[in-house]
């Protein structure tokens, strides 16, 4: 048993914190919310140079061969700092499943391109309902004997408007069951029949609606086996959820720290407000929440990294992250008072991102249900 980061993880953490605090200020975060692209290509190039895009790819695909836990540490730092852009969608939502399910050609072609910063990726799963169960998914890919023809609509696809490739989850089976009938396709964003538009969100974080009208994809562009897409989606939902949780854990640490600083500095009734028991205990609860979240995320990530069955632990981490992020932000705003409610305060940047993190890759009820099932209920 060991709670400590290893040397490589500590180096990565320090490097990431330095880089992001320099390159990705909150002024920049706010700017990018208004920016059409939603990310800074210059910063992106630097992240490529730092080897972050291919962090966990084998060296043969231009990667650095680091492991999943290293990526978790990096995501935590990105979350702490709020790093807008398609890193998560490219690496967590797409590269990781390509590493797992891609064939040799796909891996060689796509992973190398990602590691070298030559392509941006995203995953298109959820549709109108916003849900992740197979029965929520109506987008179809019909085989005409030669190609698959995709028709349908995807919602809340992160950064689709700047992506070069999508992974698209479609129905390919007869009828819709919870275990069969889905397949995942690699689709070029510029394919004929693809239409992308930004859904305006309170975080200006570039989530999109993507419509597919008779979009043709070759059968070679299936990721994994045909009709085996649920497995791919479930795999993504585990790995990517843990990475999202790491991002959230980092964000929560930042929120806790800034609140604690404020509670010591802000004087009311001739005392720092942190000396009022109700405020102090709220901060203590936040600390307990945030520490608990961090350990749950590390635990789930470590389990995944060992190859052990981790579905319950992943869902525990996600449900906890959903709860803690929201509570930390709300309590922090309340402790800050009016200043925490303003556009120029960093807190709002976090608060406005709570719901995006909550609903991506399964909301609390979905994960509670997975936990219950995992317990044998």
């Amino acid at each position, binding site marked *: 048993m060991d709670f400590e980061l290893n040397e490589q993880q500590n180096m990565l953490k320090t490097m990431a914190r330095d880089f992001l605090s320099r390159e990705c200020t909150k002024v920049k975060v706010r700017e990018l919310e208004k920016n059409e692209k939603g990310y800074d290509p210059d910063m992106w190039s630097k992240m490529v140079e730092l080897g972050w895009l291919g962090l966990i790819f084998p060296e043969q695909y231009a990667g650095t061969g680091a492991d999943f836990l290293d990526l978790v540490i990096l995501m935590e730092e990105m979350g702490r700092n709020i790093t807008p852009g398609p890193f998560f969608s490219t690496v967590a939502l797409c590269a990781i499943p390509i590493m797992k399910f891609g064939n040799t050609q796909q891996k060689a072609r796509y992973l190398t391109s990602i590691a070298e910063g030559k392509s941006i990726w995203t995953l298109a799963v*959820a549709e109108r*309902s*916003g*849900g*992740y*169960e*197979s*029965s*929520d998914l109506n987008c179809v890919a019909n085989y005409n004997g030669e190609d698959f023809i995709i028709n349908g609509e995807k*919602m*809340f696809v992160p950064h689709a408007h700047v992506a070069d490739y999508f992974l698209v989850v479609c129905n390919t089976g007869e009828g819709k069951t*919870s275990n069969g009938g889905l397949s995942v396709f690699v689709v070029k964003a510029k394919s004929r029949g693809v239409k992308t538009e930004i*859904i*305006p*969100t*309170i*975080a200006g974080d570039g*989530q999109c*609606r993507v419509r597919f009208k008779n979009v043709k994809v070759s059968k070679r562009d299936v990721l994994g086996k045909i009709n085996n897409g649920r497995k791919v989606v479930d795999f993504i939902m585990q790995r990517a959820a843990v990475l999202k949780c790491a991002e959230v854990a980092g964000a929560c640490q930042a929120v806790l720290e800034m609140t604690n600083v404020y509670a010591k500095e802000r*004087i*009311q*009734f*001739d005392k720092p*407000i942190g000396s*009022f*028991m*109700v*405020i102090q205990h709220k901060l203590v609860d936040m600390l307990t929440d945030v520490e608990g979240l961090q350990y749950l995320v590390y635990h789930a990530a470590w389990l995944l990294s060992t190859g052990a069955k981790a579905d319950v632990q992943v869902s525990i981490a996600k449900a906890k992250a959903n709860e803690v992020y*929201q509570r930390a932000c*709300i309590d922090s*705003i*309340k402790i800050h*008072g*009016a200043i*925490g*409610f*303003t*556009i*120029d*305060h960093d*807190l*709002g*940047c976090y*608060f*406005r991102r709570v*719901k*995006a993190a*909550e*609903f*991506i890759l399964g*909301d*609390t*009820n*979905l994960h509670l249900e997975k936990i219950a099932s995992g317990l044998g209920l």
Partner: protein
Amino acid sequence: MDFKFSEKEERLREEIRRFARVELAGRNTIAGMEEESSDEDWEFAMSMSRRLAQKGWLTMAWPKEYGGQGASFFEQHVYVDEASYWGIPGTSMGVSGIGWVGLSLMLFGSDEQKKKYIPLIASGDPDGVWCTAYSEPNAGSDFANIQTRAVKSGDEYILNGQKIWTSCAHRARWCWMAVRTDANVKKKQHGISLMIVDMKSPGITIKPILNYAGVHIFNEFFLDNVRVPVTNLVGTENRGWYHLMQSLAFERHSMAPQFFGSARRILEYIVKYVRETSYNGKPLASDPVIRNKIAERAIELDTLKLFGYEITWKMSRGVIPVYEAARNKAYCDFFMQRLATTGTEIIGAYSQVDMTSRWSRILGLITRLYLMFPGLSIAAGTDEVQKNIIGQFKLGLPRAY
């Protein structure tokens, strides 16, 4: 024991309903403090204020001599509830005038002040729009710590200092301001005075403060040798703290019916929504977890309703509700948070969609509530402030801060 509204009150409710259906037909209205943000919304709100004044509703509970209808507290309760339900803009005219300036002037304003300012408010006129400036950078929850100085010089006070979090300052014609007229006091509650400041006075600079949703409600507000005639002093010099306590009680007492009205509407929409929507593979209405949460919110809504009734009933009996107003404010905040979070859980990913976007669900009401409740819960006193009041005034406990 009787929880029935009178027939007269019910008729009034019906009349407001008809009014709202006609006047707001086809509009997705912005009401409350947010109407101050855009020029277009503000203009519509002010046009509604005048309509409401014509209907005799705007200040209905005020005595007739002050432009009111002498309506009962329960009639006013029905009006506030129903107007909030429909989200009728213009009901508050920047909150201050309708909420507490008029009532405070009636209590401790000079005859001249009463004559000049109250009818302007009651008429729904743009010249009847007020803002209130108590808060300063170092006077938040501890708002006796007011530093803005007013020094008497002949017939005038000369004001210097800074105010902050002043909602509606960018729309208001007048400001209801707390200043320090005596700095040599032992208790900082002493030496504060209330005055009326003409927002057109030279030396006032207003800087907008947008909230994190980009909405312009708050302002920062600098006073540089602003001259205020001594006739604009309200009540007694250096006794402003006590006047102000009274104003604050006015501020909090209508919160319950107001938020009850809008929450009632949101809950109705939520029920409708879950009946019509599927998520994670099942109809939301058939999900016991969702059903449970909505039922819990319904319990809270009913509790808030009765807390609102109780305060109105007490006022109608001549009681000045102190702890009750604080309790209702705190309960509103608690319930707002619960309703907002349940609402976002139900509309899911759509809760992050911009309120004005075509993708927004339930008219953007849930997203708006979610974004606004943390700010609203701070305005008019944090939870801690309210609970301190209740602890001291109702439970007789010693000061906890």
